[in-house]
C-alpha cells in the first residue's frame, strides 16, 4: 500500500468503460496552499488573525494517532491524509479501482455566514488549482465539488454561478447542519441556482461547534459511537423537511445526494412519511404526491457507511425492498477511517443492482463520461 509504483503519465489512447464512480473522496490543502485563496477583506481581517488548534469533539478510536483517518494514508512528507493528489490517486484510482472520483473538501460552517462563504470561495479556488485543472488531475479522473455555505444562501448562489460550466466541477456541496431545515424558503436561491444549471447538490456531514453541532433535541450523545449513529437522524429530518415543505414542488428538477448519512433508514422512513401523508395530507396542500415518490425522483444516498446486520441476507432484503438501485451510489470516503473499499461493497450488492450503484447512477447524476482512457496497472473491481 505504499506509493512507490511508477505510473505511465501519458494515458493510452483506447478507452475503457467506467465501472466504479466514487462520490466521496476528501482532499485537504497542504500547509500553505489555502490562505492566498481567501478573498479580502476576510483573509486579513479574520483568517490571519484567528488561530485555533485541534477542535475535535466526538473522537474516533486512537484519534491522537490516527486522526480519524486511514493510517496508511498519511503521506511520507508529514502532510495530512488527502493532501497529496498523487497518493490519493494511487490509493483510490489505482489500488481500489475507482475510475472516477468526486472530491468533497470540507468547508466548515461559521457563525458569520460571510466568513463561511469566504472559506467556500477559497476552497473552490484551491481545489481547482491543485486538484482539478492543473497537474494534480493529469489523469482526468478527479471531479470537484462547488462548496457553498448554505447558511449564506445568496453567497451560495453566487458561488454556483461562478463555477457553473467548469469542466471538472461535478456537483454542489453543502453541509447538513445549518438551521433551520432545508424546506425553509430562505434556501430557495441555492436550489434555484442549482436547478438553473442542472447541477446535482450533495450534502455531507460537517459536524460543527457549540450548538452548530447536529444537536439532538433531547441531550448530547456521549461518544463518537452514539453521536455518529444518530447523526443519520439529521438527514432523516432534512428529507422530511424537503418533502413536507414542498421543495421538490418548487424545484421539480432538483437532485439531492445525501453523502455519508447511512441509508438503510430511508426504507422505514418512506413508509412513515407515506403513512403520515395519508393521514395528514391536508396539513400540507403544497405536497402533491406520496412522499416516497419524491424520494425516488429526487434523493440519492452514498453507500458509505455500509451498515449491515449479523445476518447479511437481511441487508440484501432491505436493499431489494428499498429498490436500492434507484437510490444508491457507491462512495468510499477515502481517506477517512470509515473508508469502504469498492471490492468489499460490491460483495453486498445484489447482482442486478451492481451497475446502477457502482457507476450508472453516478454517471447520470454527475454527467460523467461512460468510458475513460485506461491507466496501466489500475485495478478493475468487476
Amino acid at each position: 500500500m505504499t506509493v512507490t509504483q511508477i505510473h505511465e503519465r501519458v494515458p493510452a489512447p483506447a478507452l475503457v468503460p467506467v465501472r466504479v464512480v466514487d462520490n466521496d473522496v476528501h482532499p485537504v490543502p497542504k500547509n500553505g496552499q489555502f490562505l492566498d485563496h481567501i478573498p479580502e477583506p476576510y483573509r486579513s481581517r479574520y483568517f490571519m488573525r484567528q488561530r485555533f488548534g485541534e477542535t475535535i469533539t466526538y473522537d474516533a478510536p486512537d484519534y491522537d494517532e490516527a486522526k480519524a483517518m486511514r493510517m496508511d494514508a498519511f503521506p511520507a512528507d508529514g502532510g495530512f491524509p488527502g493532501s497529496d493528489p498523487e497518493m490519493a490517486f494511487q490509493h483510490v484510482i489505482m489500488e481500489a479501482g475507482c475510475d472516477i472520483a468526486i472530491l468533497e473538501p470540507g468547508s466548515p460552517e461559521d457563525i458569520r455566514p460571510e466568513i463561511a462563504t469566504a472559506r467556500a470561495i477559497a476552497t473552490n479556488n484551491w481545489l481547482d488549482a491543485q486538484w482539478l485543472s492543473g497537474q494534480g488531475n493529469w489523469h482526468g479522473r478527479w471531479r470537484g465539488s462547488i462548496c457553498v455555505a448554505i447558511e449564506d444562501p445568496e453567497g451560495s448562489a453566487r458561488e454556483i454561478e461562478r463555477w457553473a460550466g467548469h469542466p471538472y466541477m461535478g456537483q454542489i456541496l453543502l453541509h447538513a447542519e445549518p438551521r433551520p431545515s432545508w424546506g425553509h424558503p430562505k434556501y430557495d436561491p441555492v436550489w434555484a441556482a442549482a436547478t438553473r444549471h442542472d447541477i446535482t447538490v450533495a450534502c455531507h456531514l460537517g459536524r460543527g461547534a457549540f450548538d452548530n453541532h447536529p444537536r439532538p433535541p433531547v441531550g448530547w450523545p456521549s461518544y463518537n459511537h452514539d453521536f455518529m449513529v444518530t447523526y443519520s437522524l439529521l438527514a432523516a429530518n432534512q428529507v422530511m423537511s424537503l418533502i413536507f415543505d414542498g421543495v421538490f414542488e418548487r424545484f421539480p428538477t432538483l437532485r439531492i445526494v445525501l453523502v455519508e448519512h447511512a441509508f438503510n433508514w430511508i426504507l422505514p422512513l418512506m413508509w412513515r412519511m407515506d403513512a403520515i401523508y395519508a393521514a395528514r395530507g391536508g396539513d400540507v396542500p403544497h405536497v402533491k404526491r406520496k412522499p416516497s415518490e419524491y424520494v425516488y425522483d429526487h434523493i440519492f444516498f452514498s453507500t458509505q457507511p455500509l451498515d449491515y446486520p449479523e445476518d447479511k441476507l437481511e441487508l440484501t432484503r432491505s436493499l431489494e425492498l428499498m429498490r436500492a438501485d434507484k437510490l444508491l451510489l457507491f462512495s468510499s470516503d477515502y481517506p477517512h477511517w470509515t473508508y469502504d473499499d469498492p471490492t468489499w461493497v460490491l460483495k453486498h450488492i445484489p447482482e442486478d443492482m451492481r451497475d446502477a450503484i457502482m457507476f450508472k447512477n453516478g454517471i447520470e447524476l454527475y454527467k460523467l463520461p461512460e468510458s475513460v482512457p485506461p491507466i496501466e496497472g489500475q485495478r478493475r473491481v468487476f
Partner: protein
Amino acid sequence: MTVESQPPRPRLAAGREHVVAKVGEIEPGDHKLVPIGRHGVGVYNVDGTYYAIANYCPHEGGPLCSGRLGGRSVTDERAPGGASLVEDGQYIYCPWHQWGFELASGTTAVKPEWTIRTYPVRVENDEVIVTA
C-alpha cells in the same frame, strides 16, 4: 509506525519454514513485514515473544500490519475516568477501521467468531523462524 517495509515482493511459497529475522533484529514492540503469501506476514516481538499474523484484515481487507499495537480497555472504578488499558502491546489495531486483534490468538473482541490467520514462530540458533 515501526519497521514498515516495501510491498511484499517477490513472494515466497507458503506452507513451509521461513527464516525471517535474526534475534535482536526486531526490537520488543516492533514488527517486521515479511513477504510470505499474497499479502505478507507481520512478525511481532511482544516483550520477547514472537507472533506472526497475516497482513490482511478479515473485515474489509485492510493492510493490518501497518496499524498500531495497543491494548484492551477495561472498566476500572478506581481509575480517573473509570477505565484502564491492560495487555498493552498485545493487540494489533487495523489501520483502516481500528478493529483490534489479539496477536497471540488472532481473535477480535469486536467479532469473537472471527479470527485472523496466525502462524507458529520459533527461535532457533539466533534465528526467528515462521512456519507458514
